[in-house]
């Protein structure tokens, strides 16, 4: 079965940045071939997942306010299916790390991530979460959450504008759209 190009409603593919790695991934899939049944199932699952990303309400500092703005009337991430912010990590799909993570918070963030159910994704929002930002020289700031948990999308800014976060979330959707769910491990064994 032919693997389809990644499509996001309303925005053409070319207008996104960082297309190369996704295109490469799609090509890899095409080269390996995907079974019809599994391909269709995968497409369905990915469609569901990418359009229903429920974020965890998690914010440590300034970026949290912008995250709230994204949920509010003007930016409204409910449009994309990020509607329900869950307070329990068990029910959330994506954790938006909004704000600085300091040493005392690091174990808690790790635990929150561990408590989330698969599939789970991480968006590092703001320069603090990416690298420690203005506080990177501090004695107790974690220089980037990717040192603790795997990050899918980085959204730079201090704090990022709501539009930037929406863009980051759409990038995550694109990433999810080419995930292979069925027989993912079998392919690895073949190699």
């Amino acid at each position, binding site marked *: 079965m032919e693997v389809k190009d990644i499509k996001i*409603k*309303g925005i053409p593919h070319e207008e996104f940045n960082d297309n190369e790695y996704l295109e490469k991934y799609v090509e890899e899939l095409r080269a390996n071939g995907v079974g019809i049944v599994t391909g269709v199932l995968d497409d*369905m*699952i990915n*469609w*569901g*997942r990418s*359009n*229903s990303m429920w974020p965890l309400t998690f914010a440590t500092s300034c970026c949290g306010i912008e995250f709230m703005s994204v949920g*509010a*009337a003007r930016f*409204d991430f*409910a*449009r*994309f*299916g990020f*509607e329900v912010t*869950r*307070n*329990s990590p*068990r*029910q959330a*799909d994506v954790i938006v790390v909004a704000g600085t993570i300091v040493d005392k918070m690091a174990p808690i963030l790790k635990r929150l991530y561990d*408590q989330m*159910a*698969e*599939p789970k994704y991480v968006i590092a929002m703001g320069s603090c979460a990416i690298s420690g930002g203005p506080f990177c020289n501090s004695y107790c700031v974690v220089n980037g959450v990717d040192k603790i948990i795997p990050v899918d999308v980085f959204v730079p800014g201090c704090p990022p504008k709501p539009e930037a976060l929406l863009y980051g979330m759409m990038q995550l959707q694109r990433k999810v759209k080419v995930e292979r*769910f069925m027989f993912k491990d079998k392919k690895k064994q073949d190699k």
Partner: protein
Amino acid sequence: MFDFSIVTTWVDQFLRTYLPEFWVLAIEFVVVGVVMLALYAVIALVLIYFERKICAFFQCRLGPNRVGPYGIFQSIADMLKMLIKEIIPINHTDKLLFYLAPFFVVVASFLTFGAIPFGNGLQAFDFNIGVFYLLAVSSLGVIGILMAGWASNNKYSMIGAMRSGAQLVSYELSAGLSLLTMVVLSGDLQLSTIIEKQSDTWFIFQGHLPAVVAFVIYLIAGHAETNRGPFDLPEAESELTAGYHTEYSGLQFGMFYLAEYLNMFIIASIATTVFLGGWMPFHIGGLDGFNQVMDYIPSVVWFFGKAFALMFLSLWVRWTFPRLRIDQLLHLEWKYLLPINMVNLLIMVGIVLLGWYF
């Protein structure tokens, strides 16, 4: 008015001509079961979409609009995701109760769902104690919630479950008494008879003020029973993170989520059936022409129209009011609703005895 019992009787006759009774019944049970299950899921999905759009409307937002036209497939995407999300096995839980709880909640709401008359002749089973049955099984759900709260071994869940227990036990009284008020008026417990009796005028108009009072009380109590709106204490997002289902993920959480929406529908449909004439069109005694025009609208449309109107009301309340505190919640029930309800019941008895109703 098209009577769906014609269809069902015809199917029944048709099967009976070829098969022995046992097989006829078996096939009918399976078919009805599957249809009901499908309806259950579809209604829940529609409701989720319905709520999101309405809530967005109240909040000056757009709501889901990317998945399909106007985002109508949003809840399907949610369901797909939920179905394949990991179910986390948690240590230190009471395994049996933990896994049983979501089923309990869903089964309780499904049992109630089965007895609802959706249209003229569209009712899965029609007991002669219909109202009693509805009340009995709809309150089973709380056991599931209590089980979930207890088995999760989580303090938030525990507090949520305890709140839920207190809340449901209290509000069940009001809901029951207000339905009882209407049973006094109708003189029958069977749902089909209750609807038949409203063919001229709906009960809410027949019973004067007591009927209206009972209706309002039932809406409040029913709203409280669904754990929504200002009464969402067991879930209390800002206090208890996710309340009794804090520890549930994936499909198990999905079941709670589904049951919550379905309960809303069930409460609305019971209110519709008992107070607003169920699938019965809006009739005004004496105006035959008007009544005939009304009869052209199918009974299913009438039923769902009324139910959705009531649900809209419920959503309106939910998205407007802040949450009650547990003591205020119990005050409202035991100090106001219950006494009013009892007096109301007496007045209704008087009205019925004196024959003052229409």
